[in-house]
């Protein structure tokens, strides 16, 4: 196994775009080559080592044998682990927008919070967030039909608005609350929300959304029977009937 640790040299005012921080990009490179990878801060192109201290094993190794540790706060660093296919990225703190964009494999684990668009257009692999996630978790790009198509996301805290928008596959599990419109235009993915949600599943045509806590449900969802899942009672709805009504929404009835 190869280990590489990255720490910020000092706090940023302007956010940094660092799509090169990814096991796939690091794998074939020596440490000094990694240090000279490009990152952008606004309109200034810099090298990774201009902004970060990079330490670890020097010898190139396959992506699946690589673990990248992000030491400290990376909440101003965007696009970490973009497109990664294998290996592990461990963030000890928080990460900026677009972490795990278009991720296809491997593990992205975040001990702090993740900013908006975590795992946008994810295809495979796993993302775990111990804190909260921002808006558009597992979402898509503006104007695209599909957001996330595969893989697994787990958030121990809460998530922001529009989580799993245009979800076409994969699963998202939020232990806390979700913001507005989770699972909008869901076309075949699975979402579990441990807390509450507002207007889940708008225009969904396929897939399942489960909200364990309270949910404001759209009038265009058809109320069906009460079902038991893992010993808990859920009100089942079919929706969204403004579309074909073939999605499934389960809302907990335990507390209300």
């Amino acid at each position, binding site marked *: 196994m190869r280990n590489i640790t990255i720490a910020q040299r000092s706090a940023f005012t302007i956010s940094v775009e660092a799509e090169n921080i990814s096991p796939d990009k690091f794998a074939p490179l020596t440490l000094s080559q990694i240090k000279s990878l490009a990152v952008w801060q606004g309109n200034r192109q810099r090298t990774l080592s201009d902004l970060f201290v990079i330490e670890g094993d020097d010898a190139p190794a396959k992506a699946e044998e690589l673990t990248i540790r992000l030491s400290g706060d990376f909440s101003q660093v965007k696009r970490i682990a973009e497109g990664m296919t294998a290996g592990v990225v461990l963030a000890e703190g928080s990460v900026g927008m677009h972490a795990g964009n278009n991720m296809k494999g491997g593990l992205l684990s975040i001990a702090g919070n993740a900013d908006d668009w975590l795992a946008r257009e994810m295809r495979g692999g796993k993302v775990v967030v111990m804190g909260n996630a921002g808006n558009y978790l597992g979402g898509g*790009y*503006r*104007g*695209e039909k599909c957001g996330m198509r595969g893989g697994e996301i787990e958030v121990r805290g809460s998530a922001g608005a529009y989580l799993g928008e245009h979800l076409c596959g994969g699963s998202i599990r939020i232990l806390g609350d979700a913001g507005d419109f989770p699972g909008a235009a869901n076309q075949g993915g699975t979402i579990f929300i441990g807390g509450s949600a507002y207007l889940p599943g708008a225009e969904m045509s396929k897939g399942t959304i489960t909200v364990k806590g309270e949910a404001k449900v759209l009038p265009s969802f058809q109320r069906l029977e009460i079902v038991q899942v893992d010993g808990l009672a859920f009100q089942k709805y079919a929706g969204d009937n403004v579309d074909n009504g073939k999605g499934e929404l389960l809302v907990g009835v335990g507390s209300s």
Partner: protein
Amino acid sequence: MIIRGGIVYDPANGIYGDEMDLFIDKGRMVESAKGEEIDARGLLVMPGGVDAHSHIAGKKVNTGRIMRPDDARLGTQPRTAVCRPSTGYTVPNCYAMGYRYARMGYTTAFEAATPILEARHTHEELEEIPIIDKGALTLFGNNWQVMECVRDKDLSKLAAYVAWGLRAARGYGVKIVNPGGGEAWGFGTNVKGVNDAVPNFDVTPAEIIRGLAEANEMLRLPHSIHLHFNNLGKPGNYTTAIETLDMLKDIKPSRMRQVVHVAHMQFSAYGGTSWRDFESKAPAIADYFNGHSHATMDMGQLLFGSATTMTADAPLEYGNARLTHNKWSNHDIELEESSGVVPMAYFRKMLVNAVQWAIGLELALLVKDPWKVLLTTDHPNGSPFVNYPEVITLLMSRPKREAEMATLHDQVPKRTTLAGIEREMDWTDIAIMTRAAPARILGLEDKGHLGPGADGDVSIYDLRPEEVDTSQDHALVKKSLATAKYTIKGGVVVSKEGQILATPPGRTFWVDAAVPQPEADRVMVDLEEKFARYYSVQMANYAVQDAYLPHGKAILAGLSISRGVA
């Protein structure tokens, strides 16, 4: 400038692969000149490419961009010392359009449909497209003034209005899209055929088409009417196509050219009664073209992958959006037109798409005279124009066609005749379909050829016509055509091996057709009333001002009209 030793294809001047030197001086082809020498020994040399039908500028193109950030993010390239940034694939930004045409060896492209009311916007975008020369066809087929003149059988007034409209729009020619259907769409309906009455206007599509064709010839316009048929895109529509063409065959052209140019014929060569028994009627259409000389067409070839459909045929677009469950933009233009934009993807395994793909190729291969068929994809309806090299190689190589067909829905050989077509085009055919014929069909005398006085637009490809086997080496042909070794525009090397070296502004051609003052005055009476009662803008603010054509080039036409010709 001297271009040395190229193998030149200039069919308009009877040159079919001769080794020769070419000379350019002050932006024009000349008999001899000095200056920069370009070594083209043994390489394929043709006039700069001319695209006679492409959607490159105006409201619907920009609507395509605005509703498709998903497309804009494809093909993104940063700015350079010479170039502005590029974005988009099916709906590129203005800069990318100029650079991509130039890289491919094209130096001229015409926007296919602009309503007069929104022509100002079209010219704003045309002016922003670098390098290439351009022009815009003007929509007349659903225009209230046109329909009233047709209803009143007042042909001279109609001609006077067309001349006025072209000048107001700074337009190049008369475009007709689903005549009558656009007006009907104003209340959500359509016309079903050429003899179906247009609601509220007491005219038929047939009368509109014929009236405009006659007015077009009366005005001696450089281009003929440019027609998008009724019922386009529907199974069984080939009968509408033939019925429409046949009612125009007795009209005498005022110039040495066709009487009607059919836009994107592929979309109107359909048999069957529904999508279920959908089949190609390309052979019937090709027979008609082989037997008649008054009509030309462009292919409107469809290729698999992403496209964005955009047309003044608004009801068609609503149908497309409902059928594919896709996003839908619509834009109706008061007193003049309607239009729509819908993203699209075409699939090899989708029978309808695979048959459509074959129909475009059948048309081009079955029509014997290449001067009658232009190579287009109806960008970006059938495919983006950057894929022209794919279309060319399909026309030049039967093995390539067979390899492609093997990947398609297996019903294609039963629903089309493509599998049995042996014809493989040569460089002369291609030079005609992409250069000489579009220029002649548009009436652009200085384009599409390399004779003295022609525009100094030349493309040189890294291909040796005397060595390469276009049937077998189609991959090499495609690669070489995609990126010209040199593209020369007006005597300036604008692109070399894919790198843009210079971005001169292109010119915008428009047609200024003179009509006798009394006829112009008669139209003004009608127009003043229309502006007072119906238009939402004042007449004084309607016509495109000179400021929008800093590189405009007027082509004069027109005729003295005597009353009672109709």
